[in-house]
């Protein structure tokens, strides 16, 4: 039996907040002192929106157990909405960007509900294919609309995405998803993955929760899309095809379906890895896909399985370990002292 030192809830929140702030300060110092060069600092942005994309997909794929293949579609809705908004208004950057992102997220959430309502009546492969179909339709529609710039895309979007904004939105996403999962609503979503019929029989309105999880997932994909748009400053409809959805899926599966921590690690590694492998740029996707197949064969649950990181628990475990070690040492020494007497 180990007593938990850090059970106090406010303390845990304070701990997490301090850790988040600490990591931010470290990153800023690294950037300021040029330990991270300009290019590396800029890499933090794609890492950030890939984290958001991955954890949001994980909500429906990992926690709800329904595999959607149209995540890039939601991302594109958010990207275009946010870009069109920021291009048509002229507000101070620090107001314009968050507004654009929230709008992008909302628009994607609306699409999530519209697509989720019919799509979530289906299960498994059929659901996957249907969302894939919707994703492709979104892309074709964007390609054919006037105000989205058609095949030419949108250009001249303000480069407003900064490391700070990405960091803030990554934190918001992680906070929102982990608090959602650890609530009655989250348990309802988990129960759908475990056994849908038993969930209904336990009084869970499964359709409602499927659409809810799906649109929350879409909303954050939309936010990531907005960050993406204001990072690249160009939007091209062809970059939101099935391949993009598949790429996000790879991140989630490698990290572990049902592990937010896994998605964060996996998104970070898989964004940096190609840069490290720049010399082998053409091998990048080959390595990616081999990795995906290999992980599925040898560790189908992904690298982290369903493990989720909790700073408080980890520290607790560490202290418990430390205490056990010290106690053992004390016990070993005690008899020696007794004999000495």
């Amino acid at each position, binding site marked *: 039996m180990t007593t938990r030192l850090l059970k106090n809830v406010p303390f845990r929140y304070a701990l997490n907040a301090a850790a988040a702030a600490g990591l931010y300060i470290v990153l800023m110092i690294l950037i300021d002192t040029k330990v991270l060069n300009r290019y590396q600092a800029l890499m933090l942005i794609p890492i950030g929106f890939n984290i958001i994309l991955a954890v949001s997909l994980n909500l429906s794929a990992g926690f709800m157990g329904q595999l959607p293949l149209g995540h890039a579609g939601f991302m594109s809705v958010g990207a275009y909405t946010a870009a069109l908004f920021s291009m048509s208004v002229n507000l101070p950057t620090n107001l314009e960007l968050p507004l654009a992102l929230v709008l992008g997220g909302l628009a994607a959430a609306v699409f999530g509900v519209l697509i989720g309502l*019919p799509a979530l009546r289906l299960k498994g492969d*059929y659901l996957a*294919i249907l969302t894939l179909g*919707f994703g*492709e339709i979104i892309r074709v529609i964007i390609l*054919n609309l006037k105000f989205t710039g058609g095949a030419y895309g949108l250009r001249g979007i303000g480069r407003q995405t900064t490391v700070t904004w990405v960091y803030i939105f990554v934190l918001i996403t992680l906070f929102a998803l982990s608090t959602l999962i650890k609530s009655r609503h989250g348990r309802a979503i988990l129960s759908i993955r475990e056994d849908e019929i038993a969930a209904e029989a336990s009084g869970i309105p499964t359709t409602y929760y499927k659409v809810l999880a799906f649109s929350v997932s879409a909303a954050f994909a939309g936010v990531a899309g907005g960050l993406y748009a204001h990072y690249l400053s160009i939007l091209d409809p062809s970059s939101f095809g099935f391949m993009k959805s*598949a790429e996000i899926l*790879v991140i989630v599966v490698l990290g572990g379906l049902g592990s937010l921590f896994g998605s964060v690690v996996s998104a970070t590694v898989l964004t940096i890895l190609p840069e490290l492998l720049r010399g082998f740029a053409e091998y990048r996707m080959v390595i990616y*896909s081999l990795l995906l197949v290999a992980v599925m064969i040898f560790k*189908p649950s992904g690298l982290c399985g369903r493990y989720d990181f909790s700073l408080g628990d980890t520290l607790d475990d560490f202290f418990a370990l430390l205490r056990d070690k010290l106690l053992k040492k004390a016990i070993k020494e005690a008899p020696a002292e007794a004999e000495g007497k």
Partner: protein
Amino acid sequence: MMTLVYLMINGLQIGSIYSLVALGYSMVYGIVKLVNFAHGDIIMVGAYSTWYLMSHFSVPAWIAALASVVICSVLGMLIEKIAYKPLRKSGRLSLLVTAIGVSLLLQNVVQLLFSANPRMFANMFTGTVTVGERQFSNATTVTIAVSIAIMAGLTLLVKKTKIGKAMRTVSEDNETAQLMGINVNNTISFTFALGSGLAAVGAIFYCCSYSQIQPTMGSMLGLKAFVAAVLGGIGSLPGAMTGGLCIGIAESLTKGYISSQLTDAVVFGILIVVLLVKPSGIFGRPQSEKV
């Protein structure tokens, strides 16, 4: 009126290619309950191997075609043995993700070998046939004729032969089939080989009419063929054939009367309507979970 006939014949041509590919999806789904995302990329491999044999070794077209059918069959079998078989027991989601992985792998290996640039594919069936005021290339007529022959042959194979019966039994109930003394592994391998071979045939016909090949060509073609399989009722062979023809004709009519840019949207629109109205497709049987 003539336009309509012309569009219908073009639709039948592309439709028979979809049918050939859809048959592969349908057979594989029937037997291992997997949407084989790599199937579309087998088409691409078929196209590249034919092109490579013809352009680098000056092999006669018909030998190149036969060889690529064999290559694809072997490839299909290998993929199943290496990537899917170890996962047969570990759930459909893992299988689906693996299939996506294999699809990405095939695309990128081919891209690595032959670059992402499109290559020109020489039409094997030159010459034209004139119907009324319109001309059709021989590729069109050969595609339609050969596809019909292949589908008839396939139907006979599945209905009459021993291996065909084994396939149907395994689709029905894997475990019972095993108890009846059917070699399930061999049957599954055969199904993958057969489906992949059909995909190669489809690939050759496709290239003869569209003349350009590139590593990503399989994705869209495969997806549309998959839509065809779902429309007909996935797991059903007549369904895959009918579905393929319907999608081909719908696409051709959209191109002719509405806009060629909207064909993809129409095809996926059909998919969505089918899935929502009758997910089991035209020929499929509805499934329900036992409680």
